[in-house]
């Protein structure tokens, strides 16, 4: 029983680490800020979720699980906001590679108004 749990925890942890790794690789490989935000802000969150899940599987007191849920909720509420603010700032300051976009309806609408 506890061996099965250990294996499960190890698999979940490794999965989380893998997602965090792809976040790092994406940061290096993707060409512009907006694309990089996709890996910086998201697979990294999945990596954290997996790590929290692994800790939760081993947690002894229910209140510890409460803290993990709190961490997960805060991360899910704040990471998108941070990504949005960085993306918005990048877009507004022209740090967008227009040649990588097949369509850009925001600059169209901005130039209209």
């Amino acid at each position: 029983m506890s061996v099965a749990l250990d294996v499960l925890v190890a698999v979940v942890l490794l999965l989380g680490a893998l997602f965090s790794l792809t976040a790092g690789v994406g940061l290096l490989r993707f060409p512009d800020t907006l694309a990089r935000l996709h890996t910086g802000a998201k697979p990294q969150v999945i990596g954290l979720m997996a790590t929290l899940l692994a800790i939760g599987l081993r947690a002894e007191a229910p209140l510890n699980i409460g803290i993990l849920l709190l961490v997960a909720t805060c991360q899910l509420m704040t990471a998108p906001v941070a990504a949005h603010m960085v993306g918005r700032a990048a877009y507004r300051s022209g740090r967008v590679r227009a040649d990588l976009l097949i369509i850009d309806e925001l600059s169209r609408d901005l130039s209209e108004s």
Partner: protein
Amino acid sequence: MRVVTAMRVVAPVVGMAVIWILLWGNLSVANALSGLAVGLLVAALSRLPHVGAGARIRIGGCLRLLGWFALDMARSGTRVAWQALRPGPPPVNAVIAVALRTHSDLTMVFTALALSALPGSLVVEVRRSRQTLYVHVLGVDEQGGLDKARQDALDLEKRVIRAIGTADDRREVL
């Protein structure tokens, strides 16, 4: 109406007290009381505008939204991970305007939050007056094209409305 107004004051305070207890890591009378005190203090010091006017929380809709969110997180997370790792040129992206149908701020915020939290889509700009989200889509072709990406965002709006939408939302969209 009285009950609703009381809920608006009580719910955030209780919520903050719960977070306080979780942060301390043990449930005791002292923690509960000090949590309520801190909650009352914060609520009194920072009076935030009420954004959830008319929002009705439906447990079934919320659970379905959460379940779908977890599934899509795994699905699109895997896709973005592959886009980062695969050899070859970077994915082709787009910024699309998605005109939401809701007039509720809360529905719009939750739709934007969920879109930004999911890998592959990122809200770069919001125009509140026209309820329009501008979404950066990573790898348009892998997501099934522009129309599919737009439709996905609108489907997400529908899921949010099923969970926390106002009566107006439900009449107009569902």
